[in-house]
């Protein structure tokens, strides 16, 4: 279900749904949910199945039930577009929750912060918690470890017999971890592995550390 990881003496758990739980602070980090995207498309005449809307909420509920966090932090791109009726569903969902909710705003978050405030959600540009920095876009800042989203990272795995598979992932470098996109109907961007980075792939019901193998160049089949 979840995979533990220690970062700077703090304990975290990566969930297969793409959320990250911070144990010491009882915080759940969720990035790039893109609520409202399905409804936005439908409003403009593209018939994306409406049933996909509910899935985001069900998955968030599952993750919350599993970790029971005190605080929920959206790492940006919470609402995909301008206002549509999916907001009402979100409003109802928030009303039922007892935990604190904070939004670290991203490039898609164009709704007025007042809308969020009205339902008890604080909107901030970034958060500094101890030696950790939470932002939507990946950042580098002296002495701080950065959690971010925005990229929708995925990794390509290769094996013998020309096998490949692409999976969404948590992508960690020395001072940074990029969270996978949580939302349905959002897509991914494939990242190359780098020296000293750690990659954790989402398998659908598990999180798996990805072995990284150094190769000289693309293998060519010999004659």
């Amino acid at each position, binding site marked *: 279900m979840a995979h533990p990881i220690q970062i700077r003496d703090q304990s975290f758990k990566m969930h297969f749904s793409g959320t990250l739980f911070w144990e010491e602070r009882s915080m759940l980090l969720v990035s790039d949910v893109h609520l409202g995207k399905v409804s936005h498309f439908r409003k403009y005449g593209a018939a994306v199945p409406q049933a996909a809307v509910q899935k985001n909420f069900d998955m968030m509920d599952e993750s919350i039930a599993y970790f029971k966090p005190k605080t929920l932090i959206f790492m940006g791109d919470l609402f995909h577009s301008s206002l549509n009726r999916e907001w009402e569903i979100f409003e109802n969902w928030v009303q039922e929750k007892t935990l604190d909710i904070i939004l670290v705003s991203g490039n898609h978050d164009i709704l007025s912060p007042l809308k969020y405030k009205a339902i008890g959600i604080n909107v901030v540009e970034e958060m500094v918690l101890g030696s950790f920095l939470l932002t939507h876009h990946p950042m580098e800042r002296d002495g701080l470890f950065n959690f971010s989203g925005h990229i929708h990272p995925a990794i390509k795995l290769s094996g013998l017999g020309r096998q490949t598979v692409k999976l969404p992932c948590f992508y960690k470098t020395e001072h940074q971890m990029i969270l996978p996109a949580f939302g349905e109907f959002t897509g991914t961007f494939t990242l*190359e592995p780098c020296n000293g980075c750690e990659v954790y792939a989402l398998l659908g019901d598990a999180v798996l550390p990805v072995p990284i193998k150094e190769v000289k160049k693309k293998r060519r089949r010999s004659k």
Partner: protein
Amino acid sequence: MNREELFNIAQEWFQEQHWKPFKFQKDTWKAFLQGKNGLLNAPTGSGKTYALWFPIVLNYMKQNPEYRTKHKKGLKAVWITPLRALSQEIKQSAERVTADLGTQMTVGIRSGDTSTKERARQKKQMPDLLITTPESLQLLLATKGYDKIFKDCSAIVVDEWHEILGTKRGVQMELALSRLKGISKELRIWGISATIGNLEQAREVLLGPGTNAFDNSILIKANINKKITVKSIIPKKMETFPWRGHLGLHLLEDVVPIINHSTTTLLFTNTRSQCEIWFQKILEKHPEYAGEMAMHHGSINKETRVWVENAIRNEDLKAVVCTSSLDLGVDFAPVETVVQIGGPKGVARFLQRAGRSGHRPGKESVIYFLPTHAIELIEASALQKAVKLNSVEDRLPYLNSYDVLLQYLTTLAISNGFYPKEIYREIKETFCFQAITEEKWQWLLNFLVMGSQSLQSYDEYKKVEVEEDGKFTVTNKGVAMRHRFQIGTIVGDANLAVKYQKGGYIGSVEEFFISKLNRGDVFTFAGRNLEFIRIKDMTVQVRNSNKKTNKITSWMGSRLTLSAQMSELLREELYSSSEPKEKQSKEIRALAPLFERQRRESIVPRPNEFLIESFKTREGYTHIFYPFEGRFVHEAMGSLLGYRISLLTPITFSLAFNDYGFELLSDQPIDIQQVLDNDLFSTDYMLDDLQKSLNATEMARRKFRDVAIISGMVFTGYPKKNIKMKHLQSNSQLLFDVFRDYEPENLLYQQAFTETFEHQLEEGRLRLSLERIATQNIIWKQCDKATPFSFPLITERMNREKLSSEKLEDRIKKMAALLMKK
């Protein structure tokens, strides 16, 4: 005027030109004037335009006896051409007829190239004769009051119907015709087609099965026999024949004397990148051709293409390297010789290309075939036979293309609106939708109005609305505007314009190619070396460069497959290698060293044998199967077999295929004996197994892209405008996944699978070839190394598909992310 008098007018005109009308021309005039519909089977350059322009004009003269002094305005006839590049020439021939016969009729063109001003003028007053494309015709149907425009239209001529027939543009045409039949009572529908295997069916598709229009129709054949000579270019030394590259460049010097010996030579290549490479290499080795040689393919800008076409006509060029972009239309009299580089994969296409030379009635056509690898010589030998037998392929029409129907219904909704009852009756008479049920029809209407099958809470879906009297309309201006931009059924990859930084359009390339380039990289495109500067507003900015480069623009475009006819001939030629030498063609004889080596390592199959080879390489365990049925059937058979093997044991394959066979590559060996013992080539449960093979899903995913765009679910953005529509542009792959998870019963999602089975996997042919294999002895050879037959296949790096029955977790345990060492 009676018919005889009208005929005399036409005959006189021909005499003035010192021509004599062909029988097929006179037959067509007669049938048209009798009010008949029909299909005219005539090749390009045979005078087919006069076969139909004449009766159209004569009919006008008949109905308006004072045609010399009085001009009755309004649209009389529409001429549909699949290539707008051809419209100018069609216009000229029409104008000749209208002017010489003393009418005051006007001729106009309406296509993507027509200016907004001209279009507005036409809207006010249509020309008498209009030349347009299938897409522009749909756009006319998207105009308010289109019924008034077509009210007095007497004829619709669909030119090059064989090109349109087997595509979704054909469906688009069927739908437009079904509407126009209802509007203009005097309408005659005519198609013009080159020779294809299913001409009778082509007529049925054009006119609608069982309709009055079909009953009142005729098939006229021009029967112009043209002598075609095929000459293979056989490499002098077979041992030095390269196994890789597949471009045929090693035979470049053999082409030079051919070019030198004729006025103009066309060199046909199968892909645009091959075209670029050949052009560059010839110039590199023979700079003396500079200025006398040109290149022509679909991604080069229009001005250059038109210039090349004119230069061919004026005999200014010695040679032109081209792709299928020069397959159609336009009369190029000076072309004396044609060279086909690489297998043309189909007889009809080869004949059409051969027909580009000696483009005058009665003249002999000469075509050279240049093989790009050894086994293609077998293809060359098969082609010789095919030309002799004139065994031409069928063009398979589409059935139940719901995406095109949804687009069409939206088109009607944004112009006049439509009543479902009336339109249902009309589309039911088309070939494509003859089997549609009331239930499916209702599904489509629900989809248009609600975006689903029932009203849902919190939903704001908006597209088509229903008025109180039951009329379906679009009131939202945004919906209407986006739809107009989206009309069409040809879906390309995301294209970027290539321009000089200082301006000047060079052509277009696909996003996937440019995304691999970095600033400062030099690449070859349109015969120039260009330095990549940046991408800005969907434009690739470049400057000229003197640097040498090996980066040549490539396109993803789908590859052609061997037709059933060609495959059969190919197998016969292959079998002939075991016959005595006298019975062999010279191509097969030239291949003797290759067959010898193949026999040493493995066998050359005979008619009653089916060959499977296994060997191990650094990459894993390779298993190669040789049905010789064309790449599409091989893709299907490979997936089917892979799936069935994976039921026996958890295993993962990558699948590669070409026109001769397919390869299953795995990290573990397959026991072929087990495959045979379990009868895995059986046709039982074939479709069911195919559906379950992961590969079919991957293929359907690709087909779904077109379906999603055509049906209007994915918006591709405004052409040539920098309006940011990113927030509405979704990835069709993502959409496919959402449908798979939430709405697998959706007709459009289902359609992607149906199209995969019928058009991509060629289910019918697959069944036939499995039945053939069932009658053959299967010979399994365990080889030490790769055999000559296997080389073209295992060196092919394209089209790798995956298939697996292992649990994702188990698969991944054996894998790693690769970090490239700098």
